[in-house]
């Protein structure tokens, strides 16, 4: 019974994806909606992403340095490990999970509130395709999400460099040598392919939970929690699948 319910929800999600692209909203209106979403979702996330990335990069660097106790292991591995951790997993995947909490709950609660206060009904009665009006601008705004992840990569490595050098674990030269060691440019492409996929999930799964929620204020809160859980699950699964496909 539970499986049937999950399958039906997944089917409903894909029908929603199709409906988002039907009957587009007038461009002059859509343009403003996209700019507003860029401000809310992208610009509004930069501060927290910068803060977390910088300090987690620093922690990765310190942890690596503290675990390299064998004198035969070169110090430049601190830079190497920080680069690999930040670029391959921390920035694209873990920042996305954090964003599932920040952006996702914002999207679910704002759309959910519109549902319970009949604002979505008002759009539909007027003849507006409410899914296109509400969700499409979020998808377009999140095309800029790789920019956020690029910033996270840069600040994560910068944080690692500062912690390693100013903490006295390695020299700047050693850390930078580590950053350049065995660098595979495809890893950057892999990280950004993941980021684009996660951006689509971040825009649509929370929207789905907000749009189809039923009830009142309490249910809006519950929908935000459920949306965070399912967005995180989807990101982790997508991460596994893409890693298998692209790196195996």
């Amino acid at each position, binding site marked *: 019974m539970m499986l049937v319910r999950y399958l039906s929800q997944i089917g409903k999600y894909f029908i929603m994806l199709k409906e988002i692209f039907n009957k587009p909203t007038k461009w002059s209106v859509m343009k403003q909606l996209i700019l507003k979403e860029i401000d809310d979702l992208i610009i509004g996330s930069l501060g927290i992403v910068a803060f977390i990335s910088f300090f987690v990069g620093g922690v990765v660097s310190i942890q690596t340095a503290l675990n390299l106790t064998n004198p035969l292991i070169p110090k430049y591995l601190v830079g190497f490990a920080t680069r690999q951790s930040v670029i391959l997993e921390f920035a694209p995947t873990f920042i996305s999970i954090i964003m599932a909490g920040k952006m996702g709950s914002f999207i679910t609660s704002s759309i959910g509130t519109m549902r319970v206060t009949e604002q979505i*009904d008002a759009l*539909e*009665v*007027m*003849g507006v395709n409410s899914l296109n009006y509400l969700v499409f601008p979020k998808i377009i705004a999140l095309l800029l999400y790789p920019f956020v992840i690029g910033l996270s990569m840069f600040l994560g490595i910068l944080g690692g460099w500062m912690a390693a050098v100013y903490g006295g674990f390695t020299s700047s030269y050693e850390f930078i040598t580590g950053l350049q060691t065995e660098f595979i440019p495809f890893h950057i492409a892999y990280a950004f392919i993941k980021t684009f996929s996660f951006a689509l999930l971040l825009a649509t799964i929370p929207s789905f939970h907000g749009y189809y929620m039923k009830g009142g204020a309490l249910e809006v809160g519950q929908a935000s929690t459920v949306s965070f859980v399912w967005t995180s699950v989807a990101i982790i699964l997508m991460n596994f699948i893409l890693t298998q496909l692209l790196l195996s």
Partner: protein
Amino acid sequence: MIEVKNIVKKFGDQTVLKGISTRFEAGMTNLIIGQSGSGKTVFLKTLLGIHTPDGGTISFDGRIYSELSNDEKRALRTEIGMVFQGSALFDSMTVEENVGFPLKMFTKKTPKEIKERVDFVIERVNLTNAHYKRPSEISGGMQKRVAIARAIVNNPKYLFCDEPNSGLDPKTAIVIDNLIQEITKEYNITTVINTHDMNSVMEIGEKIVFLKNGLLEWEGTNKKIFKTANEAVTDFVYSSELFKRVRKMYLEDDVK
């Protein structure tokens, strides 16, 4: 004019509307009344196209809704204005933006033309000094006026109101009722109001449709409702002592 023929609506095994037929004329305030659970909200939402009926037809000036293409349905919806129970104003917009929204979405008017029309409509609903305020910054009565302004800004042929004066004080409720009736007459709109406010029934009920258990139990005017012998209607309308006395006085005056 909206004509409803034998509308049936089911949710699972439960039949909420059991074959309702009636007609709502243009230039009149048509009221749907009934107890909670009688099916009046489902009826209104079915008329609006939010619920798809399981049987029967709804025609808007001869256009049968179920036979229209999706594009024709969307075009018809631009002819409909709706005042929701909770006003349903867009929180992220100012009063002016809320009222101008249908014009921005569905017309090719320039920003100047939109501004002129919005100013005119806001003035028409007697709303002052609220243009740049957000819905959360104005009172419930003002929100209702904004909702009415938004509903009529694009010259709708049909106006639907779901309990337009719920949550308002009696004085403001009468003002809102009268405003809706004035606008209905002024622009010859087919207005359908879902209410359980007996003041509205007495004040503006030019046609009243009484629903009971998903069936049309009685229909008539606010004058006829005083004289009706239908027990279900009298039980519902004259449930308070005040209205019982008002009815008694009305009937005594009528005999004299």
